[in-house]
């Protein structure tokens, strides 16, 4: 089967003052038709630049890219008819109402809301009560749903969503991902980026990006399986002191905060966890717990970054 989105040895750099910034450094991957593909990485990893190359807004310095089998540089007009794009910043007209925004983007793509109503129905019924409201007066979650409707209105074959859930509350984020799942069932290929590691597990496959490079590309479970060490989570009454004490111990490989715990890996393979507990107890830690835990995408990301 032909890939829906394909990148081949993409390089892209920017001139920022006198320094040259490598935004993308030899990026290659493929996204299959109907896949929900995630680009996971912190700010500045190069996700937005990659999106802009796929959506024909930028030209790579080196390498090729295809969307729907079309070349992003020479066949950009055709691609612009087929893709849906939702940029990172909220990019609708704040002074236009929900309805006007939708009509504008529908006519821009020579279609109407009615024509592809089935596709946007799920999303549209959530924002319909506010259709006379100006987009600027919507809540963050609602804005993103409106933006998604606008990106979908012409029934694109590929949907590019650049950090659609950044700055959106937890409930709306969850709803948003459910919407994406439904869209995927309708055969739309979705490429989505996010800085939130917990959202990675919701994708079919993810690429972990850092400083313009892909660190790893696999299914979420494939990535977590590759975690090479045993992961421990620790907590005590004084978390700050616990971090300092663990980092000072030479047996500890990595230690970083993770939610209400610290995640730790050790240098040796089989650590005497009792001796660590003893050491910490001697240093005055109370309510100390250290237990094995399953690595998440974030843990894998931290491990890959430290390599």
């Amino acid at each position, binding site marked *: 089967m032909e890939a829906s989105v394909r990148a081949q040895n993409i390089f892209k750099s920017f001139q920022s003052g006198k320094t040259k910034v490598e935004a993308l450094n030899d990026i290659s991957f493929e996204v299959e038709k109907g896949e929900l593909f995630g680009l996971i990485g912190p700010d500045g990893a190069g996700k937005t630049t990659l999106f*802009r190359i796929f*959506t*024909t*807004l*930028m*030209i790579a310095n080196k390498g090729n890219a295809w969307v729907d089998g079309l070349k992003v540089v020479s066949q*950009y*007009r055709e691609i*612009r*008819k087929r*893709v849906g*794009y*939702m*940029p*990172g*910043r*909220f*990019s*609708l*007209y*704040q*002074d*236009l109402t929900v309805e*006007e925004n939708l*009509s*504008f*983007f529908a*006519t*821009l*793509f*020579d279609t109407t809301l009615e024509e592809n109503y089935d596709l946007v129905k799920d999303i549209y019924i959530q924002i319909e009560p506010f259709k006379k409201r100006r987009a600027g007066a919507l809540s963050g979650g609602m804005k993103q749903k409106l933006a998604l409707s*606008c*990106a979908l209105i012409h029934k694109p074959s590929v949907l590019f969503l650049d950090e659609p859930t950044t700055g959106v509350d937890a409930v709306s984020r969850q709803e948003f991902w459910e919407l994406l799942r439904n869209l995927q069932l309708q055969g739309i290929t979705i490429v989505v980026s996010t800085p939130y590691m917990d959202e990675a597990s919701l994708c079919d496959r993810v690429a972990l990006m850092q400083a313009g490079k892909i660190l790893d590309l696999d299914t979420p479970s494939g990535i977590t399986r590759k975690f090479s060490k045993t992961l421990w989570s620790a907590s005590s009454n004084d978390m700050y002191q616990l971090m300092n004490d663990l980092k000072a111990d030479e047996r500890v490989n990595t230690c970083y905060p993770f939610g209400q715990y610290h995640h730790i890996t050790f240098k040796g393979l089989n650590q005497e966890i009792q001796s660590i507990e003893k050491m910490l107890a001697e240093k005055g830690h109370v309510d100390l717990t250290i237990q094995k835990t399953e690595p998440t995408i974030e843990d894998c990301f931290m491990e890959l970054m430290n390599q």
Partner: protein
Amino acid sequence: MKQFLYFIRKEFYHLLRDRRTLFILFGMPMAQILIFGFALTNEVKNSRIAILDNSKDEVTLSIIHRLEASRYFTIAENLNSYAELEPVFQEGKIRLAVVFPEQFQNSLLHTNEAPIQLIADATDPNVANTLINYASAIIMDYQNSMKETKEFPYVIKTELRMLYNPQLKGSYNFVPGVMAMILMLVGAMMTSISIVRETELGTMEVILVSPIIPIRIILAKMIPYLLLSMVNIASILIISVYILEVPINGSLSLLLFECFLFTLTALALGLLISSISSSQQVAMLISLMGLFLPTVMFSGFMFPIENMPMPLQLLSNLIPAKWFYYIVKDVMIKGTGLETVWKETLILIGMLVVLLTISIKKFKVRLE
């Protein structure tokens, strides 16, 4: 087509919902034309003058009467000696003093010569000049009326006639200038800002990743401001004719066509500015410094171009407003037709074609 029309409709939504901008767009032209027409005028009216009449005879009295009867002067002080002159000038009570020597009538009748001294406060040289001219004209006028009854052998008569603007009204000069200024400002600044705003907000990204042809984006951005400018032209012309009493002596349709042409040039400049500006502030600064100021300075409506050094005179040729100003003055005030302004019109058309070509070529179909 539907796509294009909705795009224009969207632009109108932006325009009409932004009350402040709308107020500037419509309020500014009215305010400027009225301010320039009434308040900022370089005509001198009702200037306070002093009379020092050492002769007090029939002739001096009739000259004084004539001075007082004119709308330019009001006699504020009647002085009795030279010593009183300096203090009234210093206190700023008067701008001009008219001094008649003793035996004025006698010497006029016997020697055919009698001097009148005009003393002006030249701290503002232009006003001083104007006042001296007015006063000289009134005295000359009196001399001519005397000639009918009496014999003056060696009087050189200068006959003045102010063409096209016999009352020397300042608004005849300002209306074309303000029109150039407003059309340039609305056209260039507003278009460039509205395009750069889309880039700044990120909406341009979404528009670009759609099937719409770039030239349509450009046109859709230009048309609302073109219509708006035409509304402004209409209101400026109505104010000029009915309130400032500046007539449209030439063909109205030619005048409107020239305004249309100039507005298009301004819009093309706006497009060009938008393609080189990174933010709305930059677009505004470039429009103000790069267009508005040169329009005011080099169109000839504030400062005569003939008086400028050669390099600046050459530079002024690049300012579209200069040509537009010539055209409007010719068509509106002098009442001439295309036969006198075809050259300027062609220059404007040339500028429009060049600017539009460059700005369409420079319009970015991508983000960089």
